[in-house]
């Protein structure tokens, strides 16, 4: 009976080397690697041959030749005598501009709609549900077309513009808004604002330390607001500067003065914000619902008041659920801003992959650089996300 147990440990029975999972894994990987390398070599060979046949040169030297095309909406000085790298920069900055503004708007709208959808009020939650279910199931491109061709391009001509409050003019060439003009000593107000900000941060640290030591609370929010308004306000009055508003006015065939926002920009900003807001609303709703009801009850049983309960217990836990998908939505918004190519807003894809590619014919280089830009944003975001996730991750025993 014990014979089997006492039998000395025998060497593994001889079997085909192919049945060894380690060797087999190596063989599979070798095959896959070979296939991928072969495919890449084939593609590279074909591309080189095709380019040679079409007598096309390669390289990134085109960046330093004159572009020769105009861009109607730029954040930096640009003209048709500028270089291609300047055109690239204009496109990149326009992408960033619309993305940053879109992220701010979409976050605000999304939070409002998401909280409205959780409201006990039947009318409010139904309206929010209709908004989300409609916008989520329609292509973004269609929404952009709607705002651009059906709304903004259908506005009256310049002479019959809608004028709101004598200062904002809306017509089929875009929206003109007043532009504040600051005189020489305005920087003192900016400096005062930062001084006030530093004071508030110091105050917050002090109040937290005092509460931990004595348990006394300090009305931080109202004091902070007062400081932030008071210090710059006093400096403003004392320095006696005045801020003029450059109000758009009709001169000749168009509006002069103020800031002129082209319809392409407005359509993209409005469309992309409303669309992304529907997704952010769902993220926010899911995050708030994910906080266990027991947490609310625990906070109540500790005797925390309503505002403290939200600030110290519910929101921090909801944010842990909300923020990762929210960053994904922000990244989606950045990528979706490339749809502007369809309505003619000069962002990266439209300027670089469109006009520049057509003029220079350097398809491989241009596609490579454009993808690299988006890849960089994506990688930066995921690095940031990993860092954040580590910070807020649940510490489990």
């Amino acid at each position, binding site marked *: 009976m014990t014979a089997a147990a006492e039998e000395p440990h025998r060497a593994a029975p001889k079997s085909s080397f192919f049945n060894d999972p380690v060797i087999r894994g190596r063989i599979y990987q070798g095959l896959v690697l070979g296939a991928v390398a072969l495919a890449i070599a084939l593609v590279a060979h074909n591309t080189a041959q095709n380019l040679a046949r079409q007598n096309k040169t390669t390289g990134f030297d085109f960046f330093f030749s004159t572009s020769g095309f105009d861009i109607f909406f730029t954040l930096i000085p640009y003209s048709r005598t500028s270089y291609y790298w300047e055109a690239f920069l204009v496109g990149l900055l326009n992408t960033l501009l619309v993305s940053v503004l879109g992220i701010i708007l979409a976050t605000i709208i999304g939070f409002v709609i998401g909280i409205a959808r959780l409201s006990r009020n039947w009318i*409010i939650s139904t309206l929010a549900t209709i908004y989300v279910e409609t916008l989520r*199931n329609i*292509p973004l491109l269609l929404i952009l077309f*709607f705002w651009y*061709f059906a709304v903004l391009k259908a506005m009256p001509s310049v002479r019959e513009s809608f004028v709101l409050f004598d200062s904002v003019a809306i017509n089929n060439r875009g929206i003109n808004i007043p532009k504040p003009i600051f005189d020489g000593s305005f920087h003192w107000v900016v400096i005062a604002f930062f001084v006030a900000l530093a004071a508030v941060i110091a105050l917050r640290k002090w109040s937290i330390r005092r509460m931990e030591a004595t348990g006394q609370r300090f009305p931080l929010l109202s004091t902070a607001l007062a400081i932030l308004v008071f210090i710059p306000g006093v400096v403003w009055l004392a320095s006696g500067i005045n801020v003029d508003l450059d109000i758009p006015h009709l001169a000749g065939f168009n509006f002069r003065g103020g800031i002129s926002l082209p319809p392409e920009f407005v359509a993209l900003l409005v469309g992309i914000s409303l669309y992304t807001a529907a997704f952010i609303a769902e993220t926010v709703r899911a995050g708030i619902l994910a906080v266990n009801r027991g947490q609310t009850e625990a906070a109540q049983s500790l005797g925390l008041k309503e505002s403290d309960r939200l600030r110290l217990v519910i929101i921090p836990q909801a944010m842990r659920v909300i923020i990762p998908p929210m960053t994904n939505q922000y990244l989606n918004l950045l990528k979706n801003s*490339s749809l502007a190519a369809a309505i003619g807003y000069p962002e990266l*894809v439209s300027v670089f992959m469109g006009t520049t*590619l057509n003029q220079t014919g350097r398809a491989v280089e241009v596609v490579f650089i454009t*993808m690299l830009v988006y890849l960089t944003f994506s990688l930066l975001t995921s690095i940031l996300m990993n860092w954040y996730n580590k910070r807020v991750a649940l510490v489990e025993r």
Partner: protein
Amino acid sequence: MANASFVRTEMIQPMPPPPSTVGLTGWVRKNLFATPGDALLTVLGIAFILWAGPPLYNFLIGNAVFVAEDGAACRVENAGACWAFIWDKMNFFIYGFYPAEEQWRVNICFLLGALLIVPLLWPAAPYKAINAILFFLVYPVIVLVLLRGGMFDLTYVPTEKWGGLTVTLIIGLVGIVCSLPIGILLALGRRSKLPIIRALSIAFIELWRAVPLITVLFMASVMLPLFAPQGVSVDKLLRALIGVTLFEAAYLAEAVRGGLQALPKGQYEAADSLGLNYPKAMGLIILPQALKLTIPGIVNSFISLFKDTSLVSIVGIFDLLNTVQASSSDLRWGSPHQAVTGYLFAAAVFWIFCFGMSRYSIFMERRLDTGHKR
């Protein structure tokens, strides 16, 4: 002496609840006027509905033009949506430039597709395996042969002539059918223990997920001809299909990976201890559970794929949105609301498909829920 004590032998009827908590009054109190703030929101909401509702109704139905010969009826003062324009252009919206005398071929494809997909999606219908083979393998071949022609006495119709809803559905269907297997393979690759396969899968997935679809489509239309060997030309529609499929496969891979990670380790170990090899363990034990968990994610990807098919209009393919966009400058129907009407129609079509998919996924999720929630 009579018994003085009294014991009730039957239950007393419960008192009715206070009238203010039941029925219509109760509902209104609870859902509309619970607190003063709530009441204010209700008033604002009703005001919004009263402000937006009547003009919307007048535009869509009240003053809308349903029957007209041309745009003249839609050009009158206060006219609403010009539905007659949609009706007149319907043929273009569905078939694009497909020759009129050959459109029966498209109709057969639609009919066949409907006949195959309804029993596939209806859980009680029998012969699922045969049905799936017919739909996923045989049907695409039939569609290709029928639409393209050039054999069996069918006239050749180049893909440039395909258009409208037909092309939108083709791209959506091919994208969904082809990207799911690739996505599953990529997800398995990313979870693999073999370092080279894992690295390649991660690189592929992250690269496609990082870039916008429009750059992928641009790349497909500009670079695929360069990649192909000399003398081989890649069809424009095929280029878009390849771009959409690879792009969506990366997103599906991430959705499936979520399901794979959500499975407890015991399932993998159980499969190993049964002595199943890798394909069997995955096919019989892991994937059925993982895919069930990922239904919402997969359907979300399908919905975004279907919406993204509209982007092919940017590389010059006449899908539904592009036909609508092209018709909105038709002078015969020129009227102030021509473009809006077209967009509303396209939005309604997309909405019906996407909303249908999301409702079906919720239905399937409930049906497949075996109650083994951890």
